[in-house]
């Protein structure tokens, strides 16, 4: 078994590396989209005019109520009917990013509603305009409250990025399947792939833990201290 694993790594490392690269690209870009979209949606839902807030709610419910794979297929296979043709990688990033945006909107909304009402009133009372109060008082506190949930989301996305396989993006799982079909050593290949995911997840969670620590302010962060 060990011998097989070393053999696969020695023989196929360029493919594994290419797969790793694509997995990282999908994860990083869709996460960034998810964070930006999620924060924007949460702010609209909390502070926006009622129709806009209702539209956000509908979006969140639609995304949460359908499988991510279906969303990916709609983007990849159905959008061309409307003249929008995306390459597999872009389609995967769009699907995962839009999906994550809906989930993160909920995390951020929770974080915003955890900020005491008095913070908002104090911000207005010194003469800040509403958008300034959001920018200088609400958002800096939102990050800090939402960080633990954001860490979870990053690790989810790392693993969900594998659905890009279904639209033929050569990411880790895709490469695993390919190498498996060449060598008939499926168990060994998927063991390697699994170990790569675990390593990435550990790195991600450690990185986010450091970020949390760096941003932590006495009295705000709701994180349970890590041992």
């Amino acid at each position, binding site marked *: 078994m060990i011998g097989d694993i070393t053999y696969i790594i020695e023989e196929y490392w360029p493919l594994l590396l290419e797969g790793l690269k694509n997995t990282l690209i999908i994860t990083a870009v869709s996460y960034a989209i998810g964070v930006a979209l999620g924060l924007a949606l949460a702010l609209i839902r909390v502070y926006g005019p009622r129709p806009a807030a209702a539209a956000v709610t509908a979006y969140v419910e639609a995304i949460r109520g359908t499988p991510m794979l279906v969303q990916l297929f709609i983007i990849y296979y159905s959008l061309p009917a409307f003249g929008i043709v995306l390459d597999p990688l872009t389609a995967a990033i769009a699907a995962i990013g839009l999906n994550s945006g809906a989930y993160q909107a909920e995390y951020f909304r929770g974080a915003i509603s955890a900020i005491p009402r008095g913070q908002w009133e*104090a911000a207005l*009372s010194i003469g*800040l305009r509403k958008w300034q109060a959001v920018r200088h008082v609400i958002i800096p506190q939102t990050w800090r409250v939402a960080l633990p949930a954001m860490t979870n989301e990053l690790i989810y996305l790392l693993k969900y990025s594998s659905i890009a396989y279904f639209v033929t993006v050569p990411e880790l799982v895709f490469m695993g399947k390919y190498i498996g079909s060449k060598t008939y050593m499926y168990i060994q290949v998927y063991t390697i792939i699994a170990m790569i995911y675990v390593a990435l997840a550990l790195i991600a969670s450690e990185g986010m833990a450091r970020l949390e620590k760096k941003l932590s302010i006495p009295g*705000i962060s709701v994180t349970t201290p890590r041992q």
Partner: protein
Amino acid sequence: MGEVLRVENLWKSYGRHEVLRGITFSINEGETKVIIGPSGTGKSTLLRCINLLVRPDKGKIFLDGEEITRPGVDEASVRARIGFVFQHFNLFLHLTALENVMLGLTKVRGLPREEAERIAKEALLSVGISEDLWRKYPAQLSGGQKQRVAIARAIAMNPRLILFDEPTSALDPELIGEVLKVMEKLAREGMTMLVVTHEIGFAMKVADEVMFMDEGRIVERGPPEEVILRPKHERTRRFLSRIWELYDLGVQR
């Protein structure tokens, strides 16, 4: 001495509950007026109306002769001219004491950082917050320190008027004194102040006028020695006798 604030026939109700029922008074420059009265009688709502956090149903409010309750008024610029000190301090939790005072100076007044810092430090020193506390976050300060930082945040903006909403009610008894002392100093230095409080000792010392509010109306008003020591109205007497009871128990024995 010009008139800084005038409130004319202010009404506000939440559903069927009438919180304010025709409040009228004014404050001249440099005056300190104190509002006392049982809880739930609209004192906080009145302050919130003046600061435009709550819209009154009827009536007008003037700041320096300008009607601030008219439609289309620039609320933020009005609020920038009125300081507000909250019962629960409401310091910005993610900012240090110094940054709390600086935020309005840089973002509202548009001052450069260095100047904002200079003004903020001056304001903090004036309320007795020394340099060792400037970099502390609200969670690292005592209640009295938090409230003094909040007062510094208000005065740094050089407001025309500061509203105090029960500024000592959330404090441990031994911390009340330091906050009242700062407020007394402010009043003596000529700051125009409207203070909702149960601290009748403070009212006796610095108030130019005491107004007793009950059920949405100003029931009685006058110099502190009259309203507090010789109240004419039955409801004022009942309220004050309860306050005196507390004083007797707490202070003498």
